[in-house]
């Protein structure tokens, strides 16, 4: 086949939340140049979070996951190219190539390729019945196989693993969660929240094994069981591996972009390559809510807000990424909402009673509020935002008192700080 080249003012690599939002915002802002949106999956941009929740349980069909309908992209003159995996970038000639040697010339490139699900490296990891859960194809594969499966081992007690555990339990499957740390969600939440979620899952019949890893996966052609690190063997017909993602930045780094954990960007989401921006899960960016440290955030909020920053810059407006991080997770009837970034906290306060299944964990660093995890406590989540944004200093005893609204803590402080000016 003769390689073809087409040229666009903006080429967006990655058709997830970030890529889609970048195209949407560019058009909203009146950008009239040509836009190509390249995704490596066979589908139009869709929402990923439901894949481990109500898409897995078949409560929502795929059409309801589409970020915008097909006609939208045509009407907005956004050319969506599906099944295009970009494997190479030449920042000098400003070309990107797909794995089928199709070339796209860009004036500006927005890299929003996200990441791929990390896989196990142990013996048996290639067996039929071992799944990851990142794409629609993954979710469809799991749903199809579930018809013949009654027992599932989930590797990883992070958000994906726990959401999948809740969904599979709902479908009547027997579930074991294997977590290498001494508690679930260890990387992202404080201990009281970990223990709360462990209890909830156990009360729904989930078997949680902590301080445990997978030694090997057993089976001839397809999975029959898992041997754990303590040499116990559990039988199952399916393994779901939820151990994080590997940022998809290979072509960028090969082209010379700086980066160790994803690709490095500045507050304007610019990589070290000219006219190449990166957003979303793969973008290691300076974040005010992490004391200016470079972090990667895997969230819809982050990818959408970074997309908006780049779209503004591309039409010549000033913009910098300063958005307040927020996240959510749904498991059973529990709504977990997070505001801020808790990493680096040196103190936490439990506000409310976990036994009542409505409470918040408030994280402080040097006496100032940096984040809240709110379980069935939407009011704390909404009112806590201001505490995080102002990095308010509050007596932990007051924070823990549910009779004092978080909102009431903001107003007197802002009067105080105003009077100091």
């Amino acid at each position, binding site marked *: 086949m003769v390689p073809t080249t087409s040229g666009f003012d903006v080429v967006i690599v990655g058709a997830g939340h970030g890529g889609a939002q970048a195209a949407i915002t560019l058009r909203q802002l009146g950008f009239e140049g040509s836009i190509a949106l390249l995704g490596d999956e066979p589908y139009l941009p869709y929402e990923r979070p439901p894949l481990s929740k109500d898409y897995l349980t078949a409560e929502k069909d795929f059409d309801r996951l589409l970020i*915008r309908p097909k006609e939208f992209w045509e009407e907005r003159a956004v050319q969506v190219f599906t099944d295009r995996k970009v494997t190479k970038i030449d920042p000098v000639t400003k070309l990107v190539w797909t794995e089928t040697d199709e070339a796209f010339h860009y004036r500006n490139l927005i890299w929003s390729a996200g990441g791929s699900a990390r896989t196990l490296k142990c013996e048996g990891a290639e067996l039929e019945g071992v799944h990851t859960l990142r794409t629609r194809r993954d979710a469809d594969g799991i749903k199809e196989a579930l018809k013949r499966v009654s027992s599932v081992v989930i590797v990883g007690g992070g958000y994906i693993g726990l959401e999948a555990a809740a969904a599979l339990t709902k479908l009547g499957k027997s579930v074991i969660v294997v977590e290498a740390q001494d508690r679930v969600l260890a990387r992202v939440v404080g201990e009281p929240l970990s223990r709360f979620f462990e209890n909830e899952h156990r009360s729904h019949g989930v078997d949680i094994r902590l301080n445990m890893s997978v030694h090997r996966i057993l089976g001839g052609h397809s999975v029959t069981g898992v041997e754990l690190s303590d040499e116990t063997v559990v039988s199952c017909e399916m393994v779901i591996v939820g151990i994080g993602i590997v940022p998809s930045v290979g072509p960028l780094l090969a082209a010379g972009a700086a980066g160790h954990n994803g690709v490095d960007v500045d507050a304007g989401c610019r990589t070290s390559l000219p006219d190449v921006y990166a957003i979303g899960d793969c973008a290691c960016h300076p974040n005010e809510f992490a004391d200016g440290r470079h972090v990667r955030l895997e969230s*819809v909020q982050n990818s959408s807000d970074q997309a908006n920053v780049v779209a503004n810059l591309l039409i010549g407006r000033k913009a910098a990424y300063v958005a307040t991080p927020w996240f959510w997770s749904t498991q059973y009837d529990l709504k977990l909402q997070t505001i801020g970034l808790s990493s680096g906290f040196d103190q936490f306060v439990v506000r409310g009673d976990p036994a009542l299944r409505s409470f918040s964990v408030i994280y402080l660093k040097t006496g100032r509020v940096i984040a809240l995890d709110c379980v069935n406590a*939407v009011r704390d989540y909404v009112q806590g935002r201001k505490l995080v944004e102002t990095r308010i200093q509050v007596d932990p005893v007051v924070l823990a008192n549910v009779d004092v609204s978080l909102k009431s803590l903001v107003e007197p402080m802002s009067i105080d700080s105003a009077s100091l000016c």
Partner: protein
Amino acid sequence: MSITVSTRSGQAMELEGKVGLSLMEVIREGGVDELMALCGGCCSCATCHVFIDEEFLEKVPPISADEDDLLEGSAYRDGRSRLACQIPYTADLDGLHVQIAPED
């Protein structure tokens, strides 16, 4: 059945939606690009904030505590405020006029 959606810039769009979806999904499917609906409709954010015509407020389900709290975070909340993801699109809504709330 159809509804009319006014965008932030004041443009009116007439949309025909499928019963069984939420109002948020009908607006999104209809190609209105400014309704972010970031959480996909699980009442976890407030990015599908709309104003419902007063005459229809009685035809939609009452506001839940969670929705109420989320809306409280918006500087633009008024008596017509709802999260579009929490409103099932039913035949009762034929002729509804809904306005996209300003972005917070």
